[in-house]
């Protein structure tokens, strides 16, 4: 399986994602420079975390104008799996692949810590190895993860089961203190209507190995592999 990892100037989780793709889940990982106009033969695309263009303007606002993003949009339109993590999620919002926007964290400062998220929909290409309502411990590291959207969009996200992860406490309860950034409806991750594009603020690539004392993030990558294998079997028939 080929997993393409898009590198924008200022991406800094690109190598971490590649390490998980190749050394942890045993797939082929390839970097794709943002100036490219084609993705090549890829089965899934990851937009990694970081500070594309320094995030000096709005997060992701310049990265979504990179030449590669047209190819990413076309790939997504054809049903290809796209995972945006942290800055990657912000870029997906700016590019319109996902609805909504990010505000500064409620406390206005950068927060790096382990948080809990509840799996709201376990029937997606990114969560099929989880069970519904499962609580995962995954680290966050961002200053702008306070998800916001208008009430109509929010209702449709809720109605279509597009909210995939919500912040919660260790027991799975979403409360004020369990929400690290003030995001609307405790949203930590959403997918598009078609279901093949996921954006999430927590970093699954930071907790996919025993060596890092936490393997909850492995489930996200394992789900993607399982989903691609199923897809490949169906296509072969």
């Amino acid at each position: 399986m080929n997993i393409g990892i898009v590198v924008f100037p200022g991406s800094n989780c690109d190598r971490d994602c590649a390490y998980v793709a190749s050394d942890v889940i045993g797939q082929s990982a390839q970097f794709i420079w943002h100036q490219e106009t084609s993705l090549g033969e890829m089965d899934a695309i990851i937009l990694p975390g970081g500070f594309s263009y320094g995030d000096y303007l709005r997060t992701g606002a310049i990265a979504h104008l990179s030449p590669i993003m047209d190819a990413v949009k076309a790939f997504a339109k054809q049903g290809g799996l796209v995972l945006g993590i942290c800055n990657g999620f912000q870029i997906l919002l700016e590019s319109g692949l996902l609805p909504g926007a990010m505000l500064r964290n409620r406390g206005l400062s950068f927060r790096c810590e382990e948080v809990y998220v509840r799996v709201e929909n376990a029937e997606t290409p990114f969560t099929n190895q989880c069970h519904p309502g499962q609580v995962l411990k995954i680290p966050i590291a961002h200053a702008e993860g306070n998800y916001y959207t208008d009430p109509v969009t929010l209702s449709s996200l809720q109605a279509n089961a597009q909210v995939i992860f919500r912040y919660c406490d260790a027991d799975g309860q979403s409360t004020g203190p369990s929400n690290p950034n003030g995001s609307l409806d405790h949203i930590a991750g959403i997918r598009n209507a078609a279901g093949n594009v996921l954006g999430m603020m927590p970093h699954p690539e930071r907790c996919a190995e025993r060596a890092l004392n936490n393997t909850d993030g492995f489930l996200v990558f394992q789900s993607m592999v399982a989903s691609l294998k199923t897809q490949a079997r169906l296509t072969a028939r």
Partner: protein
Amino acid sequence: MKHDNKPSTTESLSKALIHQHGLSDEEYQAILAHLGREPNLTELGVFSVMWSEHCSYKSSRIHLKRFPTEGPRVVQGPGENAGAVDIGDGLAAVFKMESHNHPSFIEPFQGAATGVGGILRDIFTMGARPIALLDSLRFGELDHAKNRHLLQGVVSGISFYGNCIGVPTVGGEITFNDIYSKNPLVNVFCLGIVEKDRLLKGLAQGEGNLVLYIGAKTGRDGIHGATMASDSFDDASEKKRPNVQVGDPFLEKLLLEACLEFLEQDLLIGIQDMGAAGLTSSSCEMAARSGTGIELDVALVPRRESGMTPYEILLSESQERMLLVAKPGKQDAVLAICHKWGIDAAVVGKVTNDGLLRIKDGTQTVAEIPAKALAEEGPRYDRPAAPPSYQDSLQSLNLDMLPDVKNPDEVLIALLGSPTIASKAWVFRQYDYMVGTNTVVCPGSDAAVVRLKGTQKSLAITTDGNSRYCLLNPHMGGSLAVAEAARNLVCSGAEPIGVTDCLNFGNPERPDIMWQFVMAVEGIADACRALNIPVVSGNVSFYNETNGLSIYPTPILGMVGLIDAPEHITTQWFKQAGDHILLLGQTNEDLGGSEYLKVIHAREQGIIPWLDLEVEQRLHRCLLELIRQGWIQSAHDCSEGGLLVTLAECCITSPLAPLGAQITIPPHRIRLDGVLFGESPSRAVISVKPEHLDAVREAIVQAGVPLTDLGRVTSSSFDVTIQQAAPVSPICFSLPGSHLADIWKHSLAKQLDGDE
């Protein structure tokens, strides 16, 4: 056509102008001797920065020779951009620590941010990918709004720069004392990894090879920053704010990736960061190291503003710039990589064989100075040193005048909530300490641990320094800092393999300050020699004084240790109820200079603990043996706050739920506060599974290390029984572990967030 014109020296320089450049009359005479003529203004400026204390180490250099700098693992000792030690698997760990104190006081956010930027460049100019940052910070007490402002500014600045560039800030330490109110300390440590035989150096070899400038355009910022850092402060120092540079971590990230591509494609002879004294220091140091000369044309330097004079271009300290010498014929490949990353780059000169730094502005020569005169033959001072008159009174403290502790539980709570001991999570959670996915032990244990992907190895890193000890006894204080840093690494399962130092002191022209410096250097050197830990890099920051008030002598050590296998990685917190708790090492009545005396009795006085380096080394060997046998669950260095604080920390610092302990302190012959809160060195608290207890006890006795059984780990409450010599009945107290955890975790946040 050849233009062999000499720099013009028509105007004679006034004495006032010379002094304004921070040069003494003797130093000016030396300049005349080096040049054989009067310098022009540009040359005067170049000499002034290169001969500043900050760049020349003129007051410290003769003393720094005392450090042991060699050892079987040393790949690069002091003198380069950073030091390097061999860690096996064909790899070297490259590391250094630097201060950014003066800029951080004037403008805390940018001062700290550019400190991070500067140390990162020192590491990646060596060809190493930076994988860890640590910060050692000193502030005044947080009850002053100004100190809270400085802390918040510095932390945001570090967070801004480190998070953006994507190098994790994995640890460090912060302590508070009002002596730092007008002169906070910001010391930044960085570690990188490189293939040992691909280490890059700051060399300019090969006559005719091209010199390239890459990175940010040059502006008028930071001119004479190095000179500013070589002077004391007064109330007017805020006016120096324009001397502080502004950092651009995004540009530095591009620069980092481009530099690692140069290395990958083997394009360079040498490379150096333009840090303090900018273009001037990078060019003359590269030439001096290589025994060559460099000719630069300032007209070719990319500039941010028009009308800059050669003087300004040479002395600018604009950030995120590099000077490099390309291998013959490789300049186009260098330029292509810069183009890919969108970085400005220009050929600005060439290597010569005449040993001169020759600066041209188009066809006109504007400066011509022997490179070695600037970089290596600057002034050297053996400044007078004498102990301050108040030294004896600092050391004299009659403990009999102070009441012994009656309610140890209350003292414990006070210490756990004091900002120096309390949890620093408020700070760390603003840093991305996980990016890179190598951080195996996150901030909060004795040392941070980062793994090395593709190997079985990990590195443990710590920064340490106790300035109160150094005030009371700079020699012993220096040794104790080394011992504590090494003990932190050993408790994490690592063998110490190298150290870098950042020596923060007052005005070296004062004999008392110079005495503190010389003593502390000797103390550090003695301990490093005894423990076989080479000093591979370092930095000296003098003139840390404002309105004549000097900081405490504050040497900070950044130490690196090697862990051979993942199963040897050890953390400080207890793991499981039922485990046995043991104290290794001897407890004496070591209250002098302790955190307890400061917090409870408001005294910063006394005789500080005596360190026996052989005893210390015995403890290290014993601990490493126990860890490598797989016999112990946790190990925690016993230091600030003493035994009771250490035990409480073992219960409450785990990232998981707090545990408790059932502790019995055996009868004692010394003051009770000495037993509970004294800071005797060479001690550690470990926890052991019942099935390993016998083997562990035997190994400790065999190693000749004093051993005390203290009790068992429990699930929740912290119960302490202090036995007294008969017939006095024991003192007992019980505190919920969760209560101790709350105090320790939230104390700092309460002081800082109450500010809004």
